């Protein structure tokens, strides 16, 4: 099992497509059936998203008379008015702060503890790993009521840190599960070579482990960013005043506030999903590569 993890570590550094690409060989087209099924599947996945994006370019009158049609004519007023609104940018800024700070927290704390779990030998190691693995089974919803009480007692209600701190804690299990196989697969010879060259174990961590585990770190970072960008339950409980809302709460507030202005709601919604989509498509390879490692590990 760890052989395959080691393999996945190498293949992920080389890019997940490396075994398939086979440089030099001309790529074949394959059977047409595959493309038909693929296109149908893509259409099914994308059509509702397109409905949201295109709906933002229509007027309410267009949407009422013919809900499932293309914009005719295209109007930009909905998007422009959302992009001009202070509410949108305020919520956007809150989302960026929450997502960035929790991502950094999850990656830094997760990498440190994963390093210990992967490359130190001590008695409580198994118990520690089990603790985090068990955390994987219990998403935030279950603990949300008492979590709210804990955050309230800390005086962090209506404070972005009241969202960030639990976000980091709940992000740790996934991070540990993905990173530990990565770190364990770093060949021991590298550690020995570093030691011969006079590096302490912490020096080895900062100079070798951090750069070498970058593919895994990027995967974990993207998952953490998207998870925290999309999180709904936690802000729902912790953030009550509109000034503190993150985008998911904002979308919901906006859609109930302007429920008659469907076009504007659609424009707001599609602008709110844009950052996660851009972020994801920029790093898609890394996510798939990281999942490959996690599945095999």
């Amino acid at each position, binding site marked *: 099992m*760890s*052989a395959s993890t*080691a393999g996945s570590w190498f293949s992920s550094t080389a890019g997940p497509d490396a075994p*398939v690409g086979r440089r030099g060989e001309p790529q074949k087209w*394959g059977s047409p059936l595959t493309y038909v*099924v693929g296109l149908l*599947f*893509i259409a099914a996945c994308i059509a509702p*998203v397109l*409905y*949201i994006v295109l709906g933002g370019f229509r007027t309410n009158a267009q949407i009422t008379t*013919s*809900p*499932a049609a293309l914009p005719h004519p295209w109007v930009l007023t909905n998007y422009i008015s959302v992009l001009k609104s202070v509410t949108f940018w305020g919520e956007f800024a809150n989302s960026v702060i929450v997502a960035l700070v929790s991502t950094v927290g999850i990656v830094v*704390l997760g990498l*440190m*503890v994963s*390093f*210990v779990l992967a*490359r130190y*030998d001590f008695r409580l*190691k198994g*118990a*520690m790993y*089990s*603790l985090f*693995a*068990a*955390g994987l089974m219990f*998403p935030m*919803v*279950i*603990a*949300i*009521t*008492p*979590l709210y*009480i*804990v955050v309230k007692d800390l005086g962090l209600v209506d404070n972005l840190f009241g969202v960030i701190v639990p976000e*980091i*804690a709940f992000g740790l*299990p996934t991070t540990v599960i993905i990173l530990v196989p990565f770190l364990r697969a770093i060949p*021991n*010879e590298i*550690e*020995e070579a570093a*030691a*011969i060259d006079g590096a302490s*174990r*912490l020096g080895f961590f900062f100079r070798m482990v951090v750069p070498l585990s970058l593919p895994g770190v990027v995967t974990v970072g993207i998952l953490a960013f998207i998870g925290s960008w999309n999180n709904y339950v936690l802000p729902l409980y912790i953030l009550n005043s509109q000034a503190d809302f993150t985008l*998911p709460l904002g*979308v*919901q507030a906006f859609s109930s506030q302007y429920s008659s202005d469907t076009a504007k709601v659609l424009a707001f919604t599609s602008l*709110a999903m844009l950052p*996660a*989509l851009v972020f994801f498509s920029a790093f*898609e390879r890394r996510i*798939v590569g990281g*999942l*490959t490692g996690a599945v095999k590990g």
Partner: protein
Amino acid sequence: MSDTLGTGAAAGRRSKGASGIGGAGESASPTPAPTPAPPRAAPRRRGRARMRFEIAVLSGPAIIMFLAFVIFPVALAAYYGFYRWHGYGAPTAWVGLNNYKLILTDSAFQQVLWHNGLILVLSLAVQGPLAITLALLLNQKIRGRSFIRVMIFVPYVISEVIVGTGWSLMLQSNGAVNDLLQHLGLGFLQAQWLSDPKLAIWALMAIISWKYIGFAVILMLAGLQSIPEELSEAAQIDGASYWQIQRRITLPLLGPTIRIWAFLSIIGSLQLFDLVYIIWGQYVSGTAGTSTMAIYMVAQGRSAGNYGYGSAVAVVMFLISLIVALLYQRFVLRRDLRGAVTEGGVR
């Protein structure tokens, strides 16, 4: 290879911990003894203390965060669950197991439990076969693979709020779905997708499948890529047909991936909250027949101000998930994780 690497690494680390940096040359020997005798006792003790210090510094922050904000709230819920408590001051009205008795005999809870069960079974039955078939098709060497992968992952990447807002607009009685059916000449299929209690749960299932199938396909694709091509090539040479190869070689080797996906799907189904809460809200979901345990928890707990009762519901959900997870681990995942949760998977 794996085991040599593992034990070699462990032994190397141990000897380094024992004799400090100076002993690194010794630890590089090809066959290190399990616990090499340290040259002197003093440096060894210093090395161990240093190692303990490093472990504490590196793992302390994460452990403290995790205990304080994940484990502690769950324990707190267990404590509050024994009280009638409205969220102010310390709980004083001890009611023993009364909250739990009320939950288990409440017909509304039995109903939401049934919904969760239905969602769980249908998620596995619909998404599993579909995802495997699609992954097998898309695993062939075709052009635009990475484009396809990005596209099918899109529904998974966008948030539940956006999915919920978009779909509830589309499924309204005067929404895009009914309009499309009209245009296709299928007007007789038009329906009240969200409010008809007979249909709402199926609308929810369709939305869930749409949102999460991409993740299942990507996971399966990742699993398929780890299967060596030589196996199917050899089978092909031996005269096996395409479907024989998939059935006899690919599917069994994909087993671990399928089992892990099923586990994630089961846990997700038991915790379902966001989509239902956004599309139906806590009150309408009751009449539309889509409410889940988590919705019940929020409605009866925080919204009604009964934090004690809500905590008890959380504990029931926790126990159900735990029992399901342990049973699954015991009987299905045993071979894949070798007890990562139950016995500590770090070897």
